[in-house]
């Protein structure tokens, strides 16, 4: 065990993912999935005691589940049935008897034995064809975790039970954890793992609350109820700060907020450099409800409408009508500004249970996005019909994700043509000239971008995935997340290649990853000659402010300089120095890391 800080001041540095400064009490969430357990051998004399310890944990779990069951209201029977089956699993011979047998025969401790039994059951369940049944392994996992917690004497804590405003300190937060959160009580998040694009980061940005991730040892160094200062702009976390720190940070926060509202007031102005170059600034959205914020923040259209939400919202696939109504509304509200709708980018880790998906070793490289759509024509057809039908209600553009080669574009466009024919024969209106573009996010697409230009109307560079695939970095893997580097010379060169090919062919090139919202990236994105940037609506005022401060000539010069540098770190340092010189007030107001 790590010795926890007690009232002594300590500072940590992590990855800032959502700006703002907060001072508040820590709420330590220990949900590290009962990771590695103490595994040890026991001797003959300890066997009986170990079995008894296990039986006691079973008994305690049994009581806890029964208490839970009593709390379930009469009319919600489905839920109470699940708890009944948990009670049965708890005493099931495959779990209980086999764990006891392992303790007795292998002479190992109860936690270890239980984990082994669970793995054995999981192996058997993985072989069952019926997905409904094989998914029951989740119930077994749930029960096993409860037993494990009772073995180690820990209580299961629910994030729903937080009563006062706190800063959540966790190893990691799953989507399930965050949906359970009582959001009004959360001031901010800090986590041991994660990076710019982790779930915690996206969640915090959407809620506009500060977050710092990738702190590595936050849960080990911070004790529950420690006073914390979290600076979501610099990534700094101070544990048990003194009064001077608190005053300093509160002042900084005030300045930051003041500046934010001052630039928000002028965000309707175009993003035009002092020497007259205009770049279009658009917004990325995930749900219809965000459209109002998009308008407020001064976006000139929607550069990326991620369409996954309607598919993840319920267990049933959305109908063509549901999709159509949603797309139509976005198109109408944004009209005459364009809305680029990206077709389904699901598969891999995100996909719900509608479609049978093999358990993939490497979901990021598996059956997802356009690959899934080409394999499931029914799924694709429904969405394409909805998009085409919505296209007469505004300015709609269509975009295919995860394109790796020309063949996929040809196939997707063939399907599109067929569906247009269908709509013609049904006498349903649509925009016959709907622009069709592709996401450039796989390195192969960069290499053949010259070939792709002949088949599409525009490119949109998805840097989040491009960086991940080009650098072979799994951005959710805490051990390599630090190598996820937007400033890597390879990434800058790839973006340059795509922009040059786009210009040569006369098609527009947009960039829609996190890079587009990172203040430090703006000079090089300008210097690269991109036609548009698409980013989170809340970052638009800041990005526009930066664009309006940097002459294009300057940006081009800086980009040429940066291209000569050898490492991501050198690029970052160069840009930080330039930006602090060009727009000193942004540094002072806490928009750059120090």
């Amino acid at each position, binding site marked *: 065990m790590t010795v926890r800080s007690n009232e002594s001041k300590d500072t940590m540095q992590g990855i800032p993912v959502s700006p703002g400064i907060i001072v508040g009490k820590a709420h330590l969430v220990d949900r590290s999935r009962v990771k590695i357990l103490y595994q040890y051998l026991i001797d003959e004399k300890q066997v009986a005691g170990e079995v008894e310890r296990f039986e006691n944990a079973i008994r305690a779990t049994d009581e806890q589940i029964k208490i839970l069951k009593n709390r379930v209201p009469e009319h919600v029977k489905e839920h109470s*049935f699940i708890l*009944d*089956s948990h009670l*049965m*699993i708890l005493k*099931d*011979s*495959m*779990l209980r008897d086999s764990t006891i047998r392992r303790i007795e025969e292998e002479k190992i401790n109860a936690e270890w034995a239980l984990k082994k039994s669970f793995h054995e*059951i999981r192996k*058997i*369940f993985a072989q*069952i*064809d*019926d997905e*409904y*049944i094989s998914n*029951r392994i989740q*119930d*077994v996992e749930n029960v096993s975790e409860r037993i494990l917690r009772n073995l180690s004497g820990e209580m299961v804590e629910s994030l729903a039970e937080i009563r006062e405003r706190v800063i959540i300190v966790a190893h990691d937060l799953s989507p399930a954890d965050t949906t359970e959160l009582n959001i009004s009580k959360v001031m901010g998040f800090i986590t041991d793992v994660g990076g710019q694009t982790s779930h915690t980061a996206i969640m915090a940005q959407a809620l506009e609350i500060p977050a710092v991730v990738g702190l590595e040892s936050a849960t080990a160094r911070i004790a529950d109820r420690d006073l914390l200062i979290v600076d979501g702009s610099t990534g700094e976390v101070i544990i048990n700060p003194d009064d001077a720190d608190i005053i300093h940070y509160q002042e900084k926060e005030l300045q930051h907020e003041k500046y934010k509202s001052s630039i928000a007031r002028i965000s309707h102005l175009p993003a035009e450099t002092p020497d007259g170059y205009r770049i279009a600034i658009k917004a990325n959205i995930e749900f219809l409800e965000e459209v109002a914020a998009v308008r407020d923040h001064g976006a000139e259209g929607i550069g990326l409408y991620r369409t996954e939400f309607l598919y993840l919202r319920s267990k049933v696939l959305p109908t063509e009508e549901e999709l159509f109504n949603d797309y139509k509304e976005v198109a109408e509200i944004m009209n005459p500004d364009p809305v680029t709708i990206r077709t389904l980018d699901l598969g891999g880790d995100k996909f719900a249970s509608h479609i049978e998906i093999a358990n993939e070793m490497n979901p990021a490289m598996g059956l997802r996005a356009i690959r899934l759509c080409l394999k499931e024509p029914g799924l694709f057809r429904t969405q394409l019909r909805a998009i085409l039908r919505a296209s007469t209600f505004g300015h709609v553009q269509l975009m295919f994700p995860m394109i790796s080669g020309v063949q996929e574009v040809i196939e997707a466009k063939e399907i599109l043509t067929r569906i247009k024919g269908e709509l013609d024969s049904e006498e349903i209106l649509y925009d016959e000239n709907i622009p069709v573009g592709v996401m450039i996010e796989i390195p192969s697409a960069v290499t053949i971008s010259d070939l792709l230009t002949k088949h599409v109307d525009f490119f949109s560079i998805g840097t989040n995935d491009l960086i991940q695939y080009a650098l072979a970095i799994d951005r959710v893997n805490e051990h390599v997340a630090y190598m996820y580097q937007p400033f890597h010379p390879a990434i800058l060169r790839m973006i340059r290649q795509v922009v040059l090919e786009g210009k040569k062919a006369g098609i527009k090139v947009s960039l829609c990853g996190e890079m587009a919202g990172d203040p430090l990236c703006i000079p090089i994105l300008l210097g690269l000659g991109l036609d548009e940037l698409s980013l989170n609506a809340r970052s638009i005022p800041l990005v526009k402010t930066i664009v309006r401060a940097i002459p294009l000539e300057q940006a081009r010069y800086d980009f040429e300089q940066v291209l000569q540098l050898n490492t991501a770190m050198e690029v970052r340092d160069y840009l930080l120095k330039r930006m602090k010189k060009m727009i000193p007030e942004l540094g002072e107001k806490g928009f750059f890391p120090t």
Partner: protein
Amino acid sequence: MIPGDFNMEQTKVLKISNNLGLHARAAGKIVALANQYESKLFLKKDADEVDGSSILSILTLSCPKGTEVEVKIVGEDSEAFMESLTELFSNKFGEEQ
């Protein structure tokens, strides 16, 4: 073998006739019933025979609608147990009218 011992064991082939097949809720009902009797229940599909008091084991048999399951009950109250079990199967586990 003592006389009358043959009653100690009952065997029968029962068919899964509810639409959902032998899923968790139905398996749970079998286990709940098994817990009410002294006799031991075994379910067999093809070559696999499992303990009928283990919900996980029953699930691993993976029986969709239409599956025929060989049921074996061993013990003193096997006859009464078989009777209730047969009823549970023919009732489609209480799931459909």
